[in-house]
């Protein structure tokens, strides 16, 4: 059985160029690369059909082994249609990228960059908490033996609380700073009123 060497060499060249092109950053080149890869694969499928024979149109006096294998050609036809659709869609996307960003390049994922640049220290998880942060505070002793309270503030709380006179409320039979009190008891609490749920009321 003879092998169609030209076909194989062309296929190899198409694969090589296609892989080179999809490694580029320019979208148009990536698209060209994908088209080359798809066509190289079509040639590969053609090659699996064996050597060339007669067209597979049945006539009575032709022995079966003289026909060409029709299945790979059917597969190629399907694959051509699919790659046509994908190419059209890619062209649409590339045009849209050009309209939006005036560039033909693959862009970085900003959120990914942001996460990568975020330090591993997380204020909420990792900061030493100088105060009881629960809604139901207890008076606590810090590691240095002094009283600590919410009012010492931490992280985002600090700038909010320092420049404000301490409001007090009557809670549990004694006066306590408003921040210490449970949310329901705080003056002007945001959370007192039950919030209507859903349904567009």
């Amino acid at each position, binding site marked *: 059985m003879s092998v169609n060497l030209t076909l194989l060499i062309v296929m190899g060249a198409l694969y090589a160029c296609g892989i080179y092109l999809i490694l580029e950053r320019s979208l148009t080149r990536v698209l060209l690369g994908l088209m080359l890869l*798809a066509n190289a694969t079509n040639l590969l499928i053609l090659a699996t059909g064996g050597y060339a024979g007669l067209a597979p149109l049945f006539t009575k006096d032709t022995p079966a082994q003289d026909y060409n294998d029709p299945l790979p050609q059917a597969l190629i036809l399907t694959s051509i249609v699919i790659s046509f659709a994908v190419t059209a869609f890619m062209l649409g996307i590339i045009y*849209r990228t050009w309209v*939006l960003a005036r560039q033909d390049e693959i862009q970085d994922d900003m959120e990914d960059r942001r996460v990568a640049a975020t330090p591993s220290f997380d204020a909420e998880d990792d900061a030493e908490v100088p105060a009881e942060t629960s809604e139901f505070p207890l008076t606590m002793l810090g590691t240095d033996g002094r009283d600590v309270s919410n009012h010492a503030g931490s992280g985002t709380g600090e700038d909010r609380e320092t420049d404000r006179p301490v409001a007090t409320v009557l809670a549990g039979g004694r006066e306590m700073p408003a921040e210490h009190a449970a949310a329901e008891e705080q003056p002007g609490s945001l959370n007192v009123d039950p919030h209507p749920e859903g349904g567009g009321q």
Partner: protein
Amino acid sequence: MNIASLAPLAVVLPILGAALTFLLIRHSRAQRAVSIAVLSLTLALECLLLASAWNSGTAAVTIGGWLPPWGIVMVVDQFSSLMLVVSSAISLAVLVYATGQGMADGDHDAPVSIFHPTYLILVAGVSNAFLSGDLFNLYVGFEILLTASYVLMTLGGTGPRIRAGVTYVVVSVVSSVLFLIAIAMVYGATGTVNMADLAIKLGELDQGTRTLLHVMLLVAFGIKAAVFPLSFWLPDSYPTAPAPVTAVFAGLLTKVGVYAMVRTETLLFPGDTLNTPLMVVALLTMVVGILGALAQSDIKRLLSFTLVSHIGYMVFGLAMSSAVGLAAAVFYVAHHITIQTSLFLVTGLIERRGGSSSVDRLGGLAKLSPMLALLFFIPAMNLAGIPPFSGFLGKVGLIQAGIELGTPLAYALVIGGVVTSLLTLLAVARVWNRAFWRRPTDAEHPDPVLLATPSARISGPGAKLNTVTLLPRTMVGSTAGLVVLGVALTVFAGPLFGLSDRAARDMLDRAPYIQSVLGSDVQIPAPAGAGGTR
């Protein structure tokens, strides 16, 4: 007439529905009605298929009467019909959610009326991939669902979606080309693409060729299933899509890849030598995926990483190629489709209610909307594998199978699975603590909607006209439906595990599948290279 011969309708109905909704593109109300009706009908049909597969076992349908191995066949067995039912159920829930969103935001004239036809095409592609008994038809199914997913991914054509869509399209096309190359090589080596026929003929090839074909197919499916070194594209591209689209992608598309991997491992290359690499890959997928999730602050991205991570559990169950492991994997796939989809839907609701999907900017949602908190809490605990939920049961099954296998690598995977489960709990607990538990004022730049006092809200008769409904009933209702389905998987875990067990035994046996396609007088060859792990 046999019920299983209705199987092609599971593909045809959504395609017809797509055509009809495309014609109705100017009538959004009719479009919604048609697509919901079509999907309900498909779901009912697939329940019948499942019942028939349960009662009378595997059945094959020859399309157009062309006999296998020449014609195309569709095979209904317990695994594929279970996948069909679960996938259609969640597609229906997501569709209701999406129509609710569309109605609430009033998109009557928006260009996204293309959503319904595309969505139905996606469902048709998924059904085709599940039913296909032919390697090339499987490829066509993949392409149908991928092409639809390209459109859905870039819906609206905004900058971030186009950027994410480019990555997604290029990666998908490359994986499809790899799959096509593998098909060409399989055809070149055996002269057939019928999977039952291949199951016999691949065993006659020499070991080197078999391994090459096996690896190529696994790499192609591994990209689609987002298995670790090939999972880079998923967290990049999924989160930017609209919430319902992300939800259905997360639930279905990767699982179609897992499904194809299961078929490759059990039917085409049984008892083969790639179990060890697969187990290593499963371990890395679990651990690396969940570590990625811990670094994220955006809930959608975090969930995308947990999605990658939990694919590792399924590959773990598959790689053990024992009946117990495979049954646990089948159960886990059904569980994970439901849970991951409901979590993404809830995230969509969180984004609507709280104005952001970043945990840094959210707070106090538990108090603002206890319903939302409940809807998040149940699937989140389920995902993390807290008893008694189905996530726990699936993981117990996998761990049991791993201990039964007893190799050092299996023990490493068992430990990795437990660690991943705990880290998942940590990841979802962080979301819970920040978005739901803390005071809104503690968040960084909280959205005003979180801080608005109830008295400041517009009231009076005109209020309803001016405000966008934050949590429309249809969206909350469909999400709640999925959450209930997830709980139902827990309640009916016994029968479901029984079904998974039978599906796994049939798949490992191979005879039901091959004989239903090629006739009952076919000799089933013993798996070549079998030794040890089976």
